[in-house]
Each structure stands twice: as structure tokens, then as C-alpha cells.
């Protein structure tokens, strides 16, 4: 499909870097074109008419003109600015983590409307929910699911027997859970508690409203975060940079 010279799209701004004197290169996530890089001219000047409409973690309607190399944003209008996220350091940090996750898992210009909806939904949930960690875990699970990395949580990935209600093992390179017998010999596997397994199974198959009904103890929240983080690190072959910042914020809250 060849795009017209000028086209319109919705987009969520997931990344931006400075370019030249007052311009920026934005990374957009769009429903029709997937991930896309575009130039926003003059956005670092206070009087820029694009300005806040193309700020990070903003959902906007954009008009783009095809450029020789990168397309150029000519008009922008905010659809949802997620002001609640932007007024809260904890929420900003989690929003940026979601953005980094999407950027890391996607290639450019591959249409994926479902993924766009997932990201948009995650940001909406983040600006409503009291439990922002739950939103991250839910988003991680469903992102992996959608991209074809759905972790196997029902049967042992080695012997294929149904898992017993006991402490099993989680192994990112097996793509899911190992039973007690198989996981015991696997050095890369980590124990996963029965509660953690049950919560992940539930979240895999329910919506945000039901996901929120489960009571998660602080210890369980930490376990879930570690399981998902190891899994994502294995799939991406790198640690996301914003995790270090999330950890620091959590440490400082505990100290205060």
C-alpha cells in the first residue's frame, strides 16, 4: 500500500529524542501503521503549536506529511492527555515503562490494531487505578499473549502433565512453568508459589475489572514482578532501562 502524500492517524507518543535546534524525533504507536518515527518541528519552543499535543504518553490525532526519510508532523490535536498520569511521579514512571516495553517488542510499520488498543487501555487503566503495579503485570501478560509468547501455566512444559497444587518452577526459556520434578533439575528455573501461579492464570483470562478483585499481598506482588521481569528479560535479551528507576522509587518509598 502506498500512502498518500499527506495522511492522518491517531497515535500514542512513546518516545522522543532531540533533533537539531528545536525539533524532536518522535516514536509514535499508531493503529494503522504500528510503530512509526516522525519529526515534530519546533516543538521545543514555547510558542510551538504542536507543543503539548505531541508530549510523551499523549494520545493525539496527527496529520503527517511524507518526508524523504522520516515523515513530518504538520498538525496535532490531543485526544487524551492523561493528565492524571502526568501529575504523579509514580504513574509517569510506570507509563514510561509501558512505552519502553512497547518500543522494545515492536518493529516499525507493522499494523497491529489490537496492540494499539492494549497500550491505550493500559494507559487509561493507569490513570484510573489505585494499584498501578497490577496494571503493569496485566499489560505485560497480555502483551506477551498477543505477541505469541503466552506463558504456559496449565501443564508442565517438559513432561506435559497437569501441574499439581504445590510450589512449581518458572522457566523463561521453556516458555512457562515446569512441574516440581522437572524444574528441580533445571538451573535456570525459579520457584513459583501456588498463589502466584493462580493469579497469573486468572489474569491471563480475565478483564481489568476482574483482575482487580484479587487481593495481592506485598510479597506476592514482588514475586509476580520478578517472574514477569525475568521472562521479559529473557525474551528481549536485555533488561529494560526504566526498571532500575522503578526499583529506586520503590526503595525510597520504603525508606520514607
Amino acid at each position, binding site marked *: 500500500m502506498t500512502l498518500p502524500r499527506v495522511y492522518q492517524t491517531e497515535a500514542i507518543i512513546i*518516545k522522543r529524542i532531540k533533533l537539531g535546534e528545536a525539533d524532536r524525533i518522535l516514536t509514535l504507536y499508531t493503529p494503522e501503521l504500528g510503530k512509526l518515527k516522525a519529526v515534530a518541528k519546533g516543538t521545543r519552543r514555547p510558542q510551538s503549536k504542536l507543543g*503539548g499535543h505531541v508530549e*510523551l504518553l499523549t494520545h493525539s490525532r496527527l496529520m503527517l506529511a511524507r518526508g524523504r526519510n522520516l515523515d513530518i508532523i504538520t498538525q496535532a490535536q490531543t485526544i487524551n492527555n492523561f*493528565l492524571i498520569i*502526568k501529575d504523579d511521579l509514580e504513574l*509517569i514512571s510506570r507509563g514510561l515503562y509501558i*512505552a519502553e516495553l512497547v518500543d522494545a517488542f515492536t518493529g516499525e510499520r507493522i499494523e497491529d490494531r489490537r496492540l494499539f488498543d492494549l497500550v491505550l487501555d493500559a494507559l487509561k487503566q493507569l490513570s484510573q487505578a489505585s494499584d498501578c503495579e497490577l496494571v503493569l503485570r496485566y499489560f505485560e501478560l497480555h502483551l506477551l499473549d498477543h505477541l505469541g509468547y503466552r506463558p504456559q501455566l496449565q501443564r508442565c512444559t517438559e513432561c506435559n502433565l497437569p501441574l499439581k497444587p504445590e510450589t512449581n518452577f518458572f522457566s523463561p526459556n521453556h516458555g512457562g512453568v515446569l512441574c516440581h520434578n522437572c524444574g528441580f533439575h533445571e538451573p535456570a528455573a525459579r520457584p513459583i508459589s501456588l498463589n502466584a501461579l493462580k493469579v497469573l492464570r486468572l489474569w491471563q483470562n480475565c478483564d481489568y475489572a476482574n483482575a482487580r478483585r484479587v487481593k495481592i499481598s506485598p510479597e506476592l506482588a514482588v514475586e509476580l514482578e520478578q517472574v514477569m521481569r525475568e521472562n521479559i528479560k529473557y525474551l528481549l535479551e536485555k533488561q529494560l532501562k*526504566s526498571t532500575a528507576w522503578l526499583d529506586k522509587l520503590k526503595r525510597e518509598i520504603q525508606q520514607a
Partner: protein
Amino acid sequence: MSTNLIPTAEPIAKLIEEFSKLPGIGPKSAQRLTYYLLRASTNEVSALADAIRNLKERLTLCSSCLNITDSDPCAICRDEERDRTKICIVEEPIDIIPLERTKKYTGLYHVLHGVIAPTDGIGPDELKVKELLARLNDGLVTEIILANNPNLEGEATAMYLQRLIAPLGIRVTRLARGLPYGGDLEYADDVTISRALEGRQEI
């Protein structure tokens, strides 16, 4: 490329190469600058060369505010007239210039040398935050003015510093965020207008 094909004297080729590394200077502009300098007087050329050399050799960071300076402490920190109870936090040394131009601010500065950017792996430990906290120990400072850029990372940095400094009993203020002078309301985004409404004042 053309310098490789057409035999050019080595010093000329070298200077063209160096110029074209500068932002906004292409190979043609680099050529023009080089041939201009070739015709300029020896004094003019050595003044330029000295200016460039001094940029790196004579400049350091002020040990107090971490601004770029040729004398430590810098001219602002040395000035007896300035209000030592206020510190204005800026992201980069260049941000001091517009603030000074207003002649409305008489306090001191502190340069963070960056902004918290989690997705680039930049946190407070990569910025001059420790140096700032050390300056607050003597109890002289009563107000911190956060002049971070009004964008997502700037706001995040401001919120983080607020959380860090407020428990010390120091007043923390933030530069007003709202409509820019000389702009049109029509083009303003929702966040800016929300902030402008929140911060409205009686006239």
C-alpha cells in the same frame, strides 16, 4: 568526498573535515568557511583558534552551583549582592541565560546537568542531585525554585526533587506553567490550558 578526489593541500582538507563535523555545517559550508579563513588576517585566525582552545582549557564547573565558569566559584556565586537564601534549579547551564536576562531573579543557581529520563537509564544518581543536597546542609537556603523544562521528564524531575527537599523544611516552588507570551490560545494544548487555569491570578 570531493577532498579525496581533487588534490587539496592537507591543512585545508583537514579544516574542512573538522568544520563539517559541526552541527548545521555541511561539506559546502565547511569549504566556504575554510577558504574565508585562508584569506583572513593572521590576527583574526589566531583569535579564533585561541577562543576555541580556551573553551576547553580554561573552563571548569563551579564547585558550588556546577555552572560552567572560567573562575571557581563562578561570577554569580561570588557576587555578594545576590540573595543566598534562594536557589533556582535548572537542567543545563544554558538555561541560566534566559533567567538572568529577565533581571528579576537575584538568588543563586544549581545546574543538574540533565533530567531524569528512565527510558534512557538516567536517574538522579547521574545528575548533580547529591551536590544540591550538600548545599542545603548549612540551613541558609529557605527556598528552592524548580525551573525544569515544562515537559514530561522535567516535571518528573521536579516532582522527584520536591519529594526529596520538602521534608527538609525548605519551601519548594515551581516556575508557573501556562500560556506563552505572544502565542495563540487556539493552538495551546489541554495540559497547558489546565495549568494556566490552575495558576490563574487576579489582575
